């Protein structure tokens, strides 16, 4: 089972838009997303992020986030799930795009990690 990607943003539209951007170049990659609070405001939702993680077809996930509090929520969910979750500190869109293109290209985790390393900004 290849690596799946989870997108966690503070804003619903950003998460959905990033999903669309990624899917164009990675049609066969398992990508799920969560954005904003339960009420559609700017912020993070444990429930939405949990759903994105659980509903992703893959059991090994790389998770990308925009700002810090989304990371903390991702961490809390990752502590409660059985899935193998890695939270990536690379630039949100640039990192997610890179990872998706590489997974679509058949690359494995070690190559992807190498490509993500220079994109680490947080």
């Amino acid at each position, binding site marked *: 089972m290849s690596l799946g990607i989870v997108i966690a943003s503070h804003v619903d539209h950003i998460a959905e838009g990033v999903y669309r951007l990624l899917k164009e170049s990675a049609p066969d990659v398992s990508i799920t997303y969560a954005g904003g609070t339960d009420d559609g405001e700017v*912020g*993070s939702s444990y429930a939405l992020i949990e759903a994105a993680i659980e509903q992703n077809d893959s059991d090994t996930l790389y998770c990308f986030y925009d*700002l810090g509090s989304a990371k*903390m*929520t991702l961490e809390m969910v990752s502590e409660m799930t059985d899935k193998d979750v890695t939270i990536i500190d690379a630039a949100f869109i640039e990192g997610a795009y890179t990872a998706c293109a590489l997974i679509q290209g058949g690359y494995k985790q070690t190559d992807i990690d190498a490509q993500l390393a220079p994109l680490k900004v947080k």
Partner: protein
Amino acid sequence: MELTHEQAQRWLLNFHGKVTDNKAYLSDLDQAIGDGDHGSNMARGTEAVKEKLASVTDESLEAVLKQTAMALISKVGGASGPLYGSAFMAMAKKAKETRDLSVLIEAGLEGIKHRGKADVGDKTMIDMWQPVATALKEGTFSQATIDQALLDVKPLKAKKGRASYVGDRSIGALDPGAVSSGYLFEALIEEVIA
């Protein structure tokens, strides 16, 4: 000093009251050095705590703290959600072993530090929790602890959270999370210590 589950419930409901009464003030503090939502985040989160506690069936300290954690994690919506949530999760876990208030608060503080990877001096809620935890351990905790902590947080430059992005503008300002934590510990004084 030991914490009972009834005291814990009253503590958290009192906290909800203070946060709700000061919602606009907390958001104003957050507008100055963040994104302006800490008040509404905490009002929403503590409202969920109040609802959960009204329906909780397990009359144990661990259950009260855990339900509080889950309500805050799921409803706050900002960084303070995972942070307060981790504090109460850690306290719930510690409550399996002991009811000692000082030990519990210390556990909560460690939960916040672990979750947010911040420390004393970074201008966060830790700059309220640490002095309170220390004072509780030393038996000197009082309103003066809280007042002093707020004075001491003002000159700090934020190193974590959204305030860390605004640079020197955080200097001289009160950190919203430290202020809401101040309400938490004032509520503790009113419902538990007094």
